[in-house]
């Protein structure tokens, strides 16, 4: 260990290697439930240093777990097999903005919202906006293929990242994709986005920028219950309107959010919808009017409309801080990410209420209603014996429900540690084999973030036992 620490210190500087047990404690968590201590933490300041860290770890036979800001919600950055944890937070420079090509090249530690801030002078923005966008990094977004409220209209991270510079397991730096979307050859960019740091580490990201819309209107509609709100969601989409975002918060969430941000939600509100329409001025005005009508028709008790940035931000503040605000109700949450068809939202919410009763744990719902991406948030207290386990079980029940209703395990948070054991609900063995073949193809072995994505902490050794690899041999995939 001492030799390892010394080598890492030489690579990144001693200030940026943490090995004292107390300091490792602050790297055992992310934004979710699971925890594990890294063996050592090395924080590179350049891509070349990151490559060196990978090479050093590999020489010592230790895994490397890349980490962004640690806001992830599926345990993606939790080093369950110890090893070298490599936060990319010091690689935080916006390297280039090309307003004519409408693209930017940034380092992975750049905070999501800072890309849009840097692009603002050119009238451009980076569209995907996870709720943690004021803290989460683009590198983490790429690893988890992150989404956000506005992904309803614009798509998720993979639709906005055109290429990355990566470090492979042998410490070489390479580019996948490039400065524009149309490149010949295999789309390795698409393969790596959402691979949760298991195949390579990102050291630069080329992102697409979009024009800031001419007009944006945010509509907050207050409903007596979730049923009315859900019906309004279906009706809005049914009317042929494609808002940039449709978000819903339930009663429990409202109770947590209101004291935090004083948005003025009525205490007896059963659900609120947040709808955003944007584009050219005239159609936005028409669509906004139509959305308001639809909401009133479906029982909205009050509708508020904002089109100046400050007021819009106030309406959004409740949504974007909802997760943290739930800390006012309980010291821990287990946030799920299941997806159901939009028409099944009501049914899903009903079943989630039943699960909440069955496991005796409150579940708050705050989610992307427009695309059926639910975020049931199970509230618990880890200090109470048994509650952590019970929350996991309740979470499993919710995810099964989503699959039963024809949905998916994850909309945008990634599989990580959290959902790996449920992968079999969505994928056949052959499906998973096909995914597992990527590991030897990238020569990743156990180097990167082992024990993620695949069921039961499958390490490389277990992956190698997958039928396809066993039959054809590793070399067939390298």
């Amino acid at each position, binding site marked *: 260990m001492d030799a390892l620490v010394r080598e890492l210190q030489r690579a990144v500087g001693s*200030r*940026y290697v*943490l090995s*004292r*047990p*107390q*300091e490792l*404690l*602050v*790297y*055992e*968590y*992310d*934004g979710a*439930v*699971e*925890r*594990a*201590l890294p063996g050592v933490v090395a*924080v590179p300041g350049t891509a070349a240093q990151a490559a060196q860290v990978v090479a050093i770890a590999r020489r010592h036979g230790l895994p490397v777990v890349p980490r962004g*800001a*640690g*806001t992830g919600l599926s*345990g993606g950055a*939790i080093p*369950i097999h110890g090893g070298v944890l490599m*936060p990319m*937070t*010091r690689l*935080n420079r916006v390297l280039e903005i090309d307003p004519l090509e409408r693209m930017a090249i940034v380092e992975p*530690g750049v*905070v999501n919202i800072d890309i849009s801030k840097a692009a603002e002078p050119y009238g451009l923005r980076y569209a995907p906006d996870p709720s*943690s966008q*004021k*803290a*989460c990094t683009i590198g983490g977004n790429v690893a988890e293929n992150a989404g956000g409220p506005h992904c309803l209209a614009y798509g998720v991270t993979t639709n906005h990242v055109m290429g990355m510079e990566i470090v492979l397991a042998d410490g070489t730096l390479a580019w996948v994709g490039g400065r524009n979307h149309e490149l010949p050859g295999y789309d390795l960019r698409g393969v790596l986005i959402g691979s949760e740091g298991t195949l390579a580490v990102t050291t630069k990201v080329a992102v697409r920028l979009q024009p800031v819309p001419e007009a944006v209107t945010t509509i907050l509609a207050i409903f007596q219950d979730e049923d009315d709100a859900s019906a309004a969601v279906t009706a809005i989409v049914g009317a042929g309107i494609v808002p940039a975002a449709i978000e819903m918060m339930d009663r429990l969430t409202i109770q947590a*959010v209101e*004291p*935090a*941000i004083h948005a003025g939600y009525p205490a007896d509100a059963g659900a609120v919808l947040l709808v955003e329409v944007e584009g050219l001025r005239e159609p936005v005005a028409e669509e906004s009017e139509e959305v308001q009508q639809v909401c009133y028709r479906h029982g909205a008790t009050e509708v508020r409309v904002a089109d100046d940035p400050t007021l819009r931000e106030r309406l959004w503040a409740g949504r974007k*801080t*909802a*997760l*943290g*605000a*739930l*800390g*006012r109700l309980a*010291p*821990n*949450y287990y946030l799920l990410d299941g997806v159901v068809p939009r028409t099944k939202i009501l049914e899903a919410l009903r079943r989630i209420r039943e699960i909440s009763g069955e496991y005796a744990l409150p579940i708050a719902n705050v989610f992307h209603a427009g695309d059926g991406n639910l975020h049931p948030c199970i509230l618990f*207290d*880890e*200090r109470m*014996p048994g509650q*952590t386990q019970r929350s*996991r079980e309740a979470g499993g029940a919710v995810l099964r429900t989503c699959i039963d209703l024809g949905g998916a395990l994850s909309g945008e948070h990634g599989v990580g*540690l959290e959902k790996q*054991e449920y992968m079999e609900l969505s994928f056949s063995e052959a499906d998973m084999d096909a995914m597992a073949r990527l590991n030897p193809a990238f020569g990743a072995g156990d180097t990167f973030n082992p024990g993620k994505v695949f069921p039961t*902490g499958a390490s490389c050794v277990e992956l190698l036992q997958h039928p396809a690899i066993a039959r054809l041999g590793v070399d067939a995939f390298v």
Partner: protein
Amino acid sequence: MAVGDTAAGVARGKVLATGFIGPDAPREEDLYKCVHCGLCLNACPTYVETGLETESPRGRIALMKAVFEGRAGVEPGVTEHWDLCIQCRACEAACPSGVPYGRLIEQAQAQMRPRRRGVLGRFVAWLAYAQILPSPRRMRAVSAALRLYQRSGLRALVRASRVLRLVRPLAEAEASLPDLSRPAFRASGQVYPAQGETRYRVGLLSGCVMPIFHGPTMEAAVRVLTRNGCEVHVPAAQGCCGSLNLHGGDLDGGRAMARRNIDAFLDAGVDVVISASAGCGATMKESADLFRDDPAYAAKAARFGAMTRDITEFLASLPLDPPRAGTPGRVTYQDSCHLVHAQRLSAPPRALMAAVPGLELVEMEHSDRCCGAGGSYQITQREMSGQLRAHKLEEAAATGAATIATANPGCMVQFALGAREAGLDVRVCHVVDLLDEAYRREGA
């Protein structure tokens, strides 16, 4: 999936004893409000500077939880990360779950205090916190000595001799001293009558550093208040508000000083207590919490806290008598942390500047990010303080403003030092100074 249970869960589930001692320990209910969502990270100047979780609010709270749970002690590997916190409380304003971080870090500091080693450091702390700050008389004596040093030619001699270079911290402390040639403000029970009709009876905090380092700003505050219908009382019995002691973890000492001021102002029979120092105002407003376990002072402290206003907050709430003359020029404003984050006031100082004809306010980038002053932080964490100061000056200079306005003495000292270091020809002042100048130009 047994992961969470193996590494930490066991220790978390079975806490036998807490590593914290005494009544002023971080409270369980405060610590576990933190759900480690990470939304505080980017608000934290030391995290942004280092990229390290250990230097982030979430990391510092995790270390407090670790001590509380018996997984770590108040020991090296823990304490230096609490020490690197400037206590700007930007994280508190960013936190959606309402973690009272300011209170937590003060209590963590209180835990470190009795365990500190180093005779010299403890002596200096005792001298500053227990002997000098609480006594306006001793503060004046120190300032007189420093003034003599600056004016007698001794300073020129010392600087020429380069003797200070042998002890860098001393050299930097010396360089950061503001110009003390201007007269000090003195609280002696004086009452300044309102101009015209008396509409408000206000008490003015004189405090410790402000009257010595920024005497002219205190005079300006009096003129602006009286001009706007205030009868200004400056009780003689008052002293330092205690906030520096509290931030340094000397909670008992800080409370003793706060009690004195509570009595002084409540006895003065004023309607409002005004502070021109954002740091003091923040502490005064939070008096109720400070004395929640003190039956003799709880009610008085709550009343005192509710009476307290920052000077910009109070003036902006009035139907302000607008200055008829202008202070032309470009000004940029640094949000003092304890005004914008602790008191959540960003609009009032800007509204006052907008009332000055000809004044052009140009916002700098990250105006609400700490400048690194942080009371004694400038001395105890020289390196980080200097880094933050250098960034700040770059951002301020980029606005092309000839004046940097702020609302707290520490920030003024830090910016003045930064400007000297950067060789920048800018003026640093309090928002109230700008308003006062405009009024004074009316006659001209």
